[in-house]
């Protein structure tokens, strides 16, 4: 009777311990007694589990926990593609903690480990724009386009970098190519118009802005830009109308609303004939 009780208690403790285990069972079960082989299997298992925990942390916005998980994975020296992937995931957590320099460093290593890693290039351009490093952003964007010339994100990213850096010619090429595959993308029409405006091609800029506004009539920033282009073309009355509409449509953007109102008020109202 005592023996039966002892067996029941031990079984219960073992079952309770197994229930508390959060790892899923591994299949097939390892069939080796070699200590180095078992250690390698344990490391591999830890990497897998930490990836799951880290990605779960990122999905709920717990970036600090995610950093801890991916840093631990990197301490375990995972083979490729796990190494570059862990650095990519770590960079996402760093970027969301506004640690942009750390994020950029991890993404650079990820790309060095896996030279065709498009998602890492895409994220490094975005991180570099947040850091204000237009030089590296441009180098990576060039590489991104060279690796995948039709990628919409590559074209958009380099176009934005080029506009920010004052290279309107490259921006014009990239947004033009992006629009050939995506003619209904209003944002690209707007950015192409900015490139055209900077090149002094006001007729083309006006055409692109009208295209953007036909796709998105409440696009206040495009409406404002159309007013500026019309002003440059000497169409003061039409510009005034667009600035007026922009002040109404930019209700959610007080800065744009103010500048649109100032621009509108700077243009004299035509005298009415009696």
């Amino acid at each position, binding site marked *: 009777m005592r023996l039966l009780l002892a067996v029941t208690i031990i079984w219960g403790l073992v079952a309770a311990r197994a229930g508390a285990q959060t790892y899923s069972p591994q299949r097939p079960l390892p069939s080796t007694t070699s200590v180095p082989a078992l250690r390698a299997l344990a490391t591999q298992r830890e990497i897998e589990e930490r*990836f799951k925990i880290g990605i779960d942390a990122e999905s709920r916005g717990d970036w600090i926990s995610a950093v801890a998980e991916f840093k631990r994975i990197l301490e375990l020296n995972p083979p490729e593609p796990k190494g570059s992937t862990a650095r990519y995931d770590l960079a996402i957590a760093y970027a969301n903690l506004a640690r942009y320099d750390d994020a950029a460093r991890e993404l650079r290593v990820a790309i060095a480990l896996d030279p065709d890693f*498009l998602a890492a290039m*895409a994220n490094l*351009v*975005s991180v570099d724009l947040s850091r204000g490093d237009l030089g590296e952003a441009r180098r990576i964007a060039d590489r991104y386009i060279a690796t995948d010339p039709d990628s919409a*994100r590559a074209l958009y990213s380099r176009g934005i970098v080029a506009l920010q850096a004052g290279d309107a010619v490259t921006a014009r090429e990239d947004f033009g190519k992006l629009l050939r595959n995506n003619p209904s993308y209003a944002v690209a029409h707007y950015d192409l118009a900015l490139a055209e405006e900077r090149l002094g091609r006001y007729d083309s800029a006006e055409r692109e802005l009208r295209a953007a506004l036909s796709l998105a009539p409440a696009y206040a920033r495009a409406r404002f830009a159309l007013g*500026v282009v019309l002003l440059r073309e000497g169409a003061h009355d039409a510009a005034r109308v667009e600035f007026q509409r922009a002040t109404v449509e930019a209700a959610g953007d007080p800065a744009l609303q103010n500048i649109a109102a100032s621009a509108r008020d700077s243009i004299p109202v035509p005298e009415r004939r009696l």
Partner: protein
Amino acid sequence: MSRTFVRPVLVAALLALLLICGRFAVAGAASLEDALTGALVPSAAPSLLGPITSAGRVGWECKPERSAGSAGWHEAELPRGPFAP
């Protein structure tokens, strides 16, 4: 004060006033021009692509890598624009 003295002073004062007004007008126009140019800002940078599992980027199941290589702006997860609901 003689009339011969007042006249040149008045003319000089008027000229000075004209010059000052002109300078303010030019400065005002330049500052408006600067403000307009400064307000023509490029669209936002793309947001970050999401995390990748331990399987790595290779394979159809890797959504971030597919987004990074997609030719379509929707799948590329590009900014929808400030006008989007």
